[in-house]
């Protein structure tokens, strides 16, 4: 059995999760503070992948980054970057697709902390950044872990969006979920079963570990 799709899937999930941590933490903090029309619209856009069929998202990404026109053409000509049918395209699509899973739990947890915690930190002279690092972040650890694991597990299981923008190129965009589909199409059920079992095992262990670590306090990303 070719293990490349498994390694590619894990690589994609690790990169996506790390990128989303960097993007998601400040964004979740921004969204957790107060309400405005701009924030409501931004949050709606971030949440869309939860309800949108993945193929729809993949289709629009395919159009947007097609090297024949628009942004895709510009990126190809100026930076020689191609998002369609490439690994970086998978990363971009995964970041967008899994973003609500990273931002949802962190935002909810930050909103759940009393505002007086930040105020107490400010009153003793600490900046917003110091307050975020020393007070807010350590007190939302369970939700942070939930967000990381959900993002990772969700990326492992991507199919529609990945197929649309990445296709099925062995070693480049052929992740495990696509390898399962491909094997079934070729009537190779034993290979499909092997890939499926590995994916099932990894995600099951991840989810169990979150339940154990968070003492059964796993929060839904929609909470």
């Amino acid at each position, binding site marked *: 059995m070719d293990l490349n799709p498994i390694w590619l899937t894990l690589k994609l999930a690790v990169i996506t999760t790390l990128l989303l941590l960097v993007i998601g933490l400040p964004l979740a903090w921004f969204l957790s503070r107060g309400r405005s029309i701009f924030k409501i619209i931004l949050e709606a856009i971030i949440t869309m992948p939860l309800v949108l069929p993945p193929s729809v998202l993949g289709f629009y990404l395919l159009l947007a980054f097609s090297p024949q026109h628009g942004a895709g053409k510009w990126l190809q000509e100026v930076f020689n970057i191609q998002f369609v049918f490439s690994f970086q395209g998978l990363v971009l699509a995964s970041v967008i697709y899994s973003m609500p899973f990273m931002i949802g739990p962190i935002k909810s947890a930050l909103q759940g902390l*009393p505002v*007086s*915690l930040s*105020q*107490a*930190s*400010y*009153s*003793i*002279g*600490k*900046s917003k950044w110091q307050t975020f690092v*020393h*007070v807010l972040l*350590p*007190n939302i650890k369970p939700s942070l872990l939930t967000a990381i694991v959900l993002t990772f597990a969700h990326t492992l299981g991507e199919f529609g969006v990945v197929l649309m923008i990445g296709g099925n190129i062995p070693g480049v965009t052929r992740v495990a979920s696509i390898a399962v589909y491909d094997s079934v199409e070729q009537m190779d059920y034993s290979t499909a079963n092997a890939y499926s079992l590995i994916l099932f095992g990894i995600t099951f262990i991840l989810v169990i570990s979150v339940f154990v670590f968070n003492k059964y306090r796993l929060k839904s990303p929609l909470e």
Partner: protein
Amino acid sequence: MISVDIEKKLKTYKGRQVLKIEHQFPGAGITKIYGPSGAGKTTFLKMIAGFIQPEKGKIVVDGITWVDTEAGILLPPQKRLAGFVFQDYALFPNMTVRKHLEYATTDQAWIKRLLALGKLETLADHKPVHLSGGQQQRLAILRALAIKPKLILMDEPFSALDPEMKTSLLNELKNLFDELAATVVIVSHNLPELESLNGDTFNIDLDLATA
């Protein structure tokens, strides 16, 4: 000295009302604030500390303008450095008693003295969740004092303390306030509990809004 002349709209159970305060609080002294629940006492303290902005007015502390809505001056709380004791304590769940004080100051001798003052030396390595209500409230007071503030704002700071602890802590605090030459503003529902502290009293009540 704190000179205050501010207006802030409040939403209360009686509807929209306006909190108007024009008062001068003496420097290096204690002012006890009382008033009915929901009258805006906490909001007033938070406006001085910089957590809430008034719609209109000025706050001048020792000759420095902290707030002037007309001139667009709004000093952030980090620059006001008012020691604030929160009604809900606002302790950091991730920090031990000692870490709370170390987060505020690096002066180890001062930390040691504060721990003794709050009788929390033996609990220095405990987190808030393992402290009683009274111990948590004392820690909230110690954290506010850790930065050696010139202005101390206390919101119902003794409500969870037993009478014996309250008496002994008040005696110690009186000396500390003198030593820091601090201006102290204490909000309390229960003025008799502050009997042993000399100082002015000030009543906060709401005027009905016209809007």
